[in-house]
């Protein structure tokens, strides 16, 4: 059987000027699954996800080599427009970053407006906010400033904004690290629900979070992919001593 991979990364290397940030990374993410990426700071986790939606190349002096395929299509082929690509591959960051001067509603459709898409925006706003599990909390104040929301709500607003464009892949870089446990639980529940329609890659420092939300886990260390396996296997019976040391808390 041929695995139905949404994302396939082959021999990926990445550099920041003189720093070799990723070394020959190959892995694949099956469609409608969640991949968690764990590893200490500076291990290349964030660089890895930023290569998937070509944000890495925005950093001055950054380079990369190797292949990243989404649905079998090479994302770094010249004819691929990075803006189109980012419509298909959405991203949510560590700090909620709503547009401060826009209302809740305008934040949701901001991505669409930037892409010049017209449509029934009221319907889309409701659908996206429902998908991000925020609708019930904001439906009576859609015109309020996005900054009137709590941190957890702002993060779900950013997820709604990412979902409004209809992405196929969602990259999440530490999406809950600035949130309290209740907001974190909501984001995690959301990840479980979104898996039905999306493929998700989440970077997290919180190993329990990785264990809770993901199907597969990849452990990165010093730019190398050390081990990639089912989340259950990585946390109960890792094969690599470096993974074992990291997940059991034996550092340095």
């Amino acid at each position, binding site marked *: 059987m041929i695995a139905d991979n949404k994302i396939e990364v082959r021999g990926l290397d990445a550099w920041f000027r003189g720093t070799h940030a990723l070394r020959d990374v190959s892995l694949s993410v*099956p469609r409608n699954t969640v991949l968690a990426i764990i590893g200490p700071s500076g291990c290349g986790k964030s660089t890895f996800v930023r290569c998937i939606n070509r944000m890495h190349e925005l950093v001055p002096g950054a380079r990369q080599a190797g292949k990243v395929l989404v649905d079998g299509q090479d994302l770094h082929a010249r004819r691929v427009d990075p803006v189109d690509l980012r419509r298909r591959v959405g991203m949510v960051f560590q700090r909620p970053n709503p547009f401060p001067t826009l209302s809740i509603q305008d934040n949701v459709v901001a991505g669409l407006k930037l892409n010049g898409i017209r449509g029934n925006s009221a319907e889309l706003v409701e659908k996206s906010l429902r998908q991000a599990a925020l609708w019930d909390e904001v439906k009576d104040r859609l015109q309020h400033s996005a900054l009137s929301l709590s941190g957890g709500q702002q993060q779900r607003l950013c997820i709604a904004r990412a979902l409004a464009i209809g992405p196929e892949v969602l990259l999440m870089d530490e999406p809950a690290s600035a949130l309290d446990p209740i907001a974190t639980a909501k984001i995690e529940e959301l990840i479980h629900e979104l898996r039905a329609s999306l493929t998700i890659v989440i970077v997290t420092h919180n190993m329990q979070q990785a264990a809770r939300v993901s199907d597969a886990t990849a452990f990165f260390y010093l730019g190398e992919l050390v*081990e990639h*396996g089912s989340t*259950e296997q990585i946390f*109960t*019976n*890792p094969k690599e001593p470096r*993974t074992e040391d990291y997940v059991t*808390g*034996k550092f340095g």
Partner: protein
Amino acid sequence: MKAHTDKTYDAQLDDLRNKLLSLGGKVETGIATSMRALQERDSKLAEQVIASDREVNRLEVEIDEACRRLLVLRQPAASDLRFITTALKIVVDLERIGDLAVNVAERAIDLNQSPPLRPVHDLTKLAQLCQQQVRAALDAFVDGDPTGAEAVIQHDELVDSIYHNLFNELLALMMEDPRNIRRANSLLFVAKHLERLADHATNVAEMVIYMVRGTDVRHPGSRASKSVPPA
């Protein structure tokens, strides 16, 4: 083995390991003492075994608490998780071994009140082998030695075959003279307790293999197959 960055975690795991070893030591002594009570016809020794069961029970409760504390406070993973879940399982087996030693001691007190029956050769052999099995299972646990654990599992067949011989021998004694029935029956219970106790040693050995290798060797074929995404 590499130490945890948080040294108090290592101290807590060591404490749990030491409690298990202490429990293992106590139940081993229990078996040896109850068999001596039987062979030397010394009911005082049997009373000691019965009294020491309180200590065994206390340790069981302490070990359970230590495991729960580690699970909730440390959220252990990988080898730590396998060690703690193993501890939770083998503490039950060790406590049962202690109970079975008490049962043997109670039978010894009963038997010591009647004149001795003709010596049953295989009973000594069975008792020695069962004690060896318990010791070997505990050693395998301490050393994290799956090969030693596999040997324990294999030797259980020998335990069973000695038990069956003994069963036939005691049955013959009963048929020979009805006055033997009560005592032979008590000895049969002793044999059964020893055989059961060796089964618990086998359980411990199976958990040691899981603890070290992460593979469950119990009941082959009963696990749902798991698909692992390709690396």
